Structures are given as structure tokens and as C-alpha cells.
């Protein structure tokens, strides 16, 4: 499993551009928002947590089809399937690799982008915490979507359609933590819910993803 993780990480970093793309996309989305809604500082600081969350979610979505599609094309997914590693383990490692290469950088860049949106001072730590808790769920749910559409030509658009509704609960609780944190309110309840969703998804969804992948590899 560690070998697979290292391989995925190395591929993501070395093979062509995909690594930084999500970050750049996140940056551009965040920069575009003030152009869209106007430069008033109070408005921006009010919507900043939500914008950061939606931006991170979209940046995450952008790189989802790279999780499995490349391995599907060159046949290494078939090799992995016949390896002694259970399929559940494979999809979990894939999700973890996606999180390390996409989710984790997003988490750390988000506070810097918060400056652009004049995020209130109390908000920084909660944006960081909520993204840190929430992005793994995004990766795991995204792996499920990627597994569903892996065999399809032009599966990318379909995958967004399938994955975005599944992102709703995570987004709601994650953005709620960030927003309440920025407003200086108590964050315990949404934080607990976000953690619950995140860990629940991590524990259960790999089974669904593995089942789906087995069907697709049949």
C-alpha cells in the first residue's frame, strides 16, 4: 500500500502539470469573485469563508478524473486489481494520494487567499481547520465518482454531475464551521457534524467505490 501511495505521489508530482493546476485554479476562482461581486470589503469578508470553500471544492473536482483514468488507460489498474491488495485498499490509497496532492495544498493556500478576500482575523484558523477536516471527505467521495465513470469516454462532465450533489452535506457543514468561526460564534456542532461526515465517508465509501470499480473492470 505504501509503495502504491509513493508511486501515485511521484506520478502526480513528476508527470505533467496536474499537480499545481488545482492550486492555480483555486487562486483564479478566488481572484475572480471580487470582480464578480464588487470590491466592497465588508461584503467580501462576509462571503469569504463560503467562497474559499466553494473554490476548494471546485479545485478538488477538477483533478478527480486523474485519480483513476490514467491507470485505467495504461492498464495498470488491471494489474492492481490482480495484486494481493484488496480493492478497498487500492481506492483508499488512491483517495489518500489525491488528498495529499490536491486537498492538502488547498488547505494551506486557503488562508493566504483569505487575505485577498479580507477574511476576518478569527476566521483563518477555522477555515484551515474546516478544510483540513473536510477535504479528505471530498477526495473520498470524488474517488467514488471517478470509479463510477472510469470506463466512459468523456466521463468528466458526467462525473461532476454525479459528484456535486454528493458534496452538498460536506460543503454545508464545512462552510458553516468557517462562517461561524469568522463571525466569532460557537463552532462545536457543525465541526462535530463535519468530522462525522468525513470519518464516516472514509470508513464506508471505499467499499462502494471498490464494488463499483470491480464492476467496471469486469
Amino acid at each position, binding site marked *: 500500500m505504501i509503495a502504491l501511495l509513493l508511486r501515485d505521489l511521484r506520478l502526480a508530482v513528476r508527470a505533467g502539470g496536474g499537480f499545481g493546476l488545482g492550486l492555480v485554479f483555486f487562486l483564479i476562482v478566488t481572484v475572480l469573485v471580487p470582480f464578480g461581486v464588487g470590491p466592497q470589503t465588508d461584503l467580501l469578508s462576509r462571503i469569504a469563508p463560503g467562497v474559499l470553500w466553494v473554490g476548494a471544492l471546485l479545485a478538488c473536482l477538477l483533478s478527480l478524473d486523474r485519480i483513476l483514468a490514467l491507470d485505467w488507460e495504461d492498464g495498470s489498474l488491471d494489474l492492481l486489481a490482480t495484486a494481493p491488495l484488496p480493492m478497498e485498499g487500492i481506492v483508499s490509497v488512491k483517495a489518500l494520494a489525491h488528498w495529499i496532492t490536491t486537498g492538502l495544498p488547498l488547505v494551506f493556500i486557503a488562508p493566504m487567499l483569505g487575505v485577498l478576500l479580507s477574511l476576518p482575523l478569527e476566521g483563518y484558523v477555522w477555515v484551515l481547520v474546516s478544510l483540513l477536516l473536510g477535504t479528505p471527505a471530498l477526495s473520498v467521495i470524488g474517488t*467514488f465518482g471517478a470509479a*463510477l*465513470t472510469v*470506463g*466512459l469516454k468523456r*466521463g468528466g462532465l*458526467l462525473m461532476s*454531475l*454525479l459528484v*456535486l*450533489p*454528493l458534496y*452538498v*452535506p460536506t460543503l*454545508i*457543514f464545512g462552510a*458553516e464551521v468557517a462562517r*461561524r468561526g469568522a463571525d466569532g460564534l460557537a463552532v462545536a*456542532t*457543525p465541526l462535530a*457534524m463535519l468530522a462525522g*461526515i468525513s470519518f464516516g465517508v472514509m470508513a464506508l*465509501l471505499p467499499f*462502494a467505490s471498490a*464494488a*463499483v470499480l470491480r*464492476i*467496471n473492470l*469486469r
Partner: protein
Amino acid sequence: MASIWEYANPVKFVRTADRVLPWLSGLSLTALVVGLVWGFFFTPDDYRQGATVKIIYLHVPAALMAINAWLMMLVTSLIWIVRRHHVSALAARAAAPVGALFTVIALVTGAIWGQPMWGTWWAWDPRLTSFLILFLFYLGYMALWGAIENDDTAADLTSILCLVGSVFAILSRYAVNFWNQGLHQGASVMRAGALAGDTAERVSNVYAVPLFICMAGFALLFLALVLLRTQTEIRARRMRALLMRERMA
């Protein structure tokens, strides 16, 4: 009449559906005509809502069936996963567009009702939002069915999507509840209006009786449409198989 599993045989299913369909459609038509005409023309106007209250006869049954259609898809998907009866998978596929249509009807009539009552076509009220999310789930489900060429693979993948989607739909339902209360309290005034219409207990009998007839009509209509669409799909598949055999020979 041994068991319900006999109807997993496509031939038996098609034959029975042929026999039942005229009755079902007739009954549904009767119930809808009686319920809607009674509801629209023979009930008094509400003292506060006026004539707009009569949208209830389309709105509530459509919403009811929109949720039940997803529930039916969930059950048939489970049957497909467990017992691999093709009719079951096809029934799930047949129910999806009908359910999506009912969702749209519920959303649109809700908007038309909301405009005079709440003064807005749309509010990010928990009920409204979760229905919109349900609609998105329907769209994704249908898109996945359409995108995969192999029938069995498509049935497998969509049934798993239906199971996972159900869990997430319920999660979203409660998440949305939480989100709205945390966001804008002002919406609770609007919610009271929605609740008075949405819970049948609070509707007086003058309105309730035609409402129940309409609900029965919508349910029967749903059944008839699903049976018809399943039957059509079975026949289409058989035709495809026959054509293939012809080409092979």
C-alpha cells in the same frame, strides 16, 4: 399465484402489465379528474390564501410521489443487486424520469404558490432546497444510465449510485435543515406557510378529501407510467436481441 418473484420473468411481467395497464390508467384518470375537478371547482376559497390554496392538489401529490419514486428505485435497485432480476433494474430505470418529472412539478407549482403567498418564487428554505438536491440526484442517475453502453454494467453501477445517493440525500436533508436555521432566521415565517400546506393533519376535511383522491390518482399514474415504461424497455431489448440474432444468422 405462487410468489411475487414470478413477475421477475419478463414474459410474465409483460403479459400481466398488458392486462393491468388499461385498468390502472383508467382508474388513475378517473381519480385525477374527480380529485382535480372537485378540488379546483367545488371547494371554498381559503379565508387567507384565497384561490391559490388549490395549487395544493397538484403540489402535494407530486411531491409525495417524487419522494416515493426514489424509494421505489432504492427497493428495485436492492432487488437487482441481491437477486439479479432484470425486470427490477429496468423498473428502477423506468421510474427515474417519472420521479424527476414529479419533482419538477412539485418545484414549479411550489414556486407558483410561493409567489403570491410568500412574495417570492424561491427561498432557500430546507424543504425547497432538499427537493432541488433530490432533482439533481435524479439527473445524475438518469445521466449515468444513459452514458453506459453495456446494460448489465449500467444496471449495476446505477443501483450502487442509488444506494449511495439515498444515504447522501438523507444526509443533505438534515444538513440543509441545520444550515438554514443557522443562516437566516427570517425564513421561519415562510416555513410556517409551507408547513400548514404540507402536513395533511392541518388541512380541513373540505380540502383533504379531494386531496387524498388526487394523491391516489398520482400514485396510480406513477404505477401506470412505470409499468408502461418497463414494458416498453423489455420489448425494446427483445427487439434488439432479435435483430442481433438476425444479423448473426
